[in-house]
């Protein structure tokens, strides 16, 4: 029997989980809380896309949480100075790109290990935000919320935007030369180099893309609340890496699909509220998530052991 693809097994697991919820806790599906939960995850989905790209080239970026925070605070500061949205959005996106590009330069051009580089930038950026904000929340102008739309329209817009972006990137990974390059560099950088693909350029641009997507995620998070918390984005790196791993992206690069990671995120994001609705104590939430991640890695090992 042919083993199920990771995406198919995730759909099955999700289906079972949702079916159980449907019987045991139909309240889970009441529209407004469900919509809120999904729109809260929309930024995370966009950030996961960036992490997937980085992981496909055998690298990791654990500074995304701090990039996220810095972009949020930057956006809040600019908004409180009444910068029009049409300027604010590109500025923040540019800032994210620069942050990602800096990581990429250190990793690809100076050839430093990405886990160390991004650990350093994670701390530096986080401390910069702390120093700038001194823990203070930033109030946002009212017109920035939900892009000035009604709450539910805004939520739908965010969810649709995140899905659309994911769809475009998933298509690009399979159908653009750039996507093929990511897989080639991640599978065997030397072979890619011999085929005329530059591994260092590819890696640098991937980090840059990750920074851009993280900035977009920060903006998508910003419009959902009236204030900016300088601690926002804490733990984003773990969440996105976990989603990618559960979704079948190999930590050793070159393997996995973006839709898998999106499903992985959805599964992880479903587990915690599901536990609440099923009256399991909240303490178990992280343990269950951890178990899911371990299971995913064990499955990866098995599938790569029998080629």
């Amino acid at each position, binding site marked *: 029997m042919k083993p199920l693809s990771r995406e198919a097994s995730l759909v099955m697991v999700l289906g079972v989980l949702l079916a159980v919820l449907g019987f045991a806790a139909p309240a889970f599906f009441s529209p407004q809380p469900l919509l809120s939960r999904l729109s809260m995850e929309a930024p995370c989905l966009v950030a996961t896309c960036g992490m997937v790209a980085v992981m496909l080239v055998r690298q990791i970026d654990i500074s995304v949480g701090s990039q996220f925070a810095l972009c949020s605070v930057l956006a809040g500061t600019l908004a409180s100075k009444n910068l029009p949205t049409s300027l604010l959005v590109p500025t923040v996106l540019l800032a994210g790109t620069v942050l990602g590009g800096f990581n990429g330069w250190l990793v690809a051009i100076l050839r430093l290990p990405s886990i160390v580089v991004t650990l350093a930038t994670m701390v530096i950026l986080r401390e910069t935000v702390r120093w700038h904000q001194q823990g203070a929340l930033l109030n946002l102008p009212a017109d920035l919320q939900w892009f000035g739309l009604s709450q539910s329209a805004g939520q739908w817009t965010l969810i649709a935007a995140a899905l659309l972006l994911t769809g475009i990137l998933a298509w690009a990974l*399979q*159908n*653009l*030369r*750039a*996507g*093929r*390059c990511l*897989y*080639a560099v991640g*599978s*065997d950088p*030397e*072979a*890619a*180099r*011999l*085929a*005329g*693909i*530059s591994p260092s350029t590819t890696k640098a641009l991937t980090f840059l893309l990750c920074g851009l997507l993280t900035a977009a995620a920060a903006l998508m998070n910003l419009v959902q609340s009236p204030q900016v918390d300088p601690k926002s984005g804490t733990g984003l790196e773990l969440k996105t890496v976990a989603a990618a791993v559960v979704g079948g992206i190999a930590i050793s690069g*070159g*393997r996995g699909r973006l839709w898998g990671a999106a499903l992985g995120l959805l599964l992880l994001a479903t587990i915690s509220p599901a536990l609440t609705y099923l009256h399991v104590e909240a303490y178990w939430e992280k343990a269950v998530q951890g178990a899911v991640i371990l299971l995913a890695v064990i499955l990866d090992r098995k599938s790569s052991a029998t*080629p």
Partner: protein
Amino acid sequence: MSAVLELRSITKSFGPVRALRGVSIALFPGQIHALLGENGAGKSTLIKVMTGAHQPDSGELLLDGKPSQPLSPVSARAKGIACIYQQPALFPDLSVAENICLALEPHSALSRVRWKNRLQTATSLLRRIGAQFSPETEVRALSMPEQQLVEIARALGSGARVVIMDEPTASLPEQEANRLLEIVRELASQGVAVLYISHRLEEIAAIASHVTVLRDGESIATLPMEGVTHDQLVELMVGRKVAASAPLPAPSTASGPLLELQNLTCTAAGIRNLSLQIRPGEILGLGGLVGAGRTELARVLFGITPADSGSILLENHPVQIRSPRDAIGHGIAYLPEDRRRHGVILPMPVEHNMTMAVQPRLFPWTWIRRNRERSMANQFIESLAVKTSGPEAPVGSLSGGNQQKVALARWLATRPRLLILDEPTQGVDIGAKSEIHSLIRKLASEGLAVLLISSELPELLALSHRVAVLRGGEIVRSFDAPPTPQQVLQAALGYGEKREVA
């Protein structure tokens, strides 16, 4: 006197490849026994059988005249068999004394290190072989020959009675090599049996008392060194090899050279002052031993390790090749050796592998046209007769020969003018091999210039119109007409030319 270590009719196969087909050799205490053989004659496999890294399929192994169980790496060491490799395997951050004693002390993780004893042991061992450096030096700071001395001291310390030395002088300058030879003699005079592997015939003549010649996995002859001439040895190594089939007629000399190298030098790759020419439609074979600079030259030409000086002319125009991308742009293609590592990407589908080097041409404006990719892949699958379940099958599911064809297809897709083939039939079965041979001939007859690197002399001689032999990163001889195997080997071994005095 009985032999310390004796092998009788040892055979060893790896899958379909018969690496050893019956090797017999006996090593006696106090004797230096030389082992000679071409690339791929089975020397490394033989060493691995002796050190217990490989288990022989059949044959007998005798220690002190008594039949012994097959060896494991641990039991081989316990029985006093030690091997010193060309590249010493030491811990660079530890001191000489630590390196020598690590293997000698009982390893319990918690046993206390007796530093004084360590130092004493190391000092006395180093004195025995006449080493001049302090045992407290960090190994990192030692030169290559000094590191080899550390290895020898370690072997002595472990009570080695058989010391195997695998080309210990290959990367040493003359003086250092002579000093090492002294130490080898010293070892033998202390009653150690030495198996000495080297390609330097004059060295073997100077120190060995006996020589065994390996050819195609068989021990062809064991002779006392006295009275043996170099010619005899070369003859034994080559045997009466018949070319697989007659080489093609050479292309007309009317056309100018496609590629011309003038005094090409690349220090990092060890290429020195190298000049050659190759015409369209010509197959130029590069002969030489492993490490003579053939692969290194290919890597320079393909921009992996760009040249420091000298010029590369393509159709009489000087070009700069600083990266594989440059090389591809100039119509150069390189099929690397070790296909499983860098020739193809095993988990990727056949079609993705085939189009990998031509993406910009095949998919302008960046998006991938599946139809074009599929039809190109199907064309190559048909024209090269690749046996695969389909273009979407991962390359890892194909046999070695077919993987090589996929790699070749990737480079033919670039429509190259110059194709560099590095060991194109390494590890492929006989059938695929002859297919690849006729393919190479066909490509050349269509006007492609081919630079062929092969360690298999029959293959090299059967395919090449001309042969250039490299040694130490230089062309030591070139043959305009197909040479005999003896001529190539003599040039590769550096015999027949005056050796420079260092």
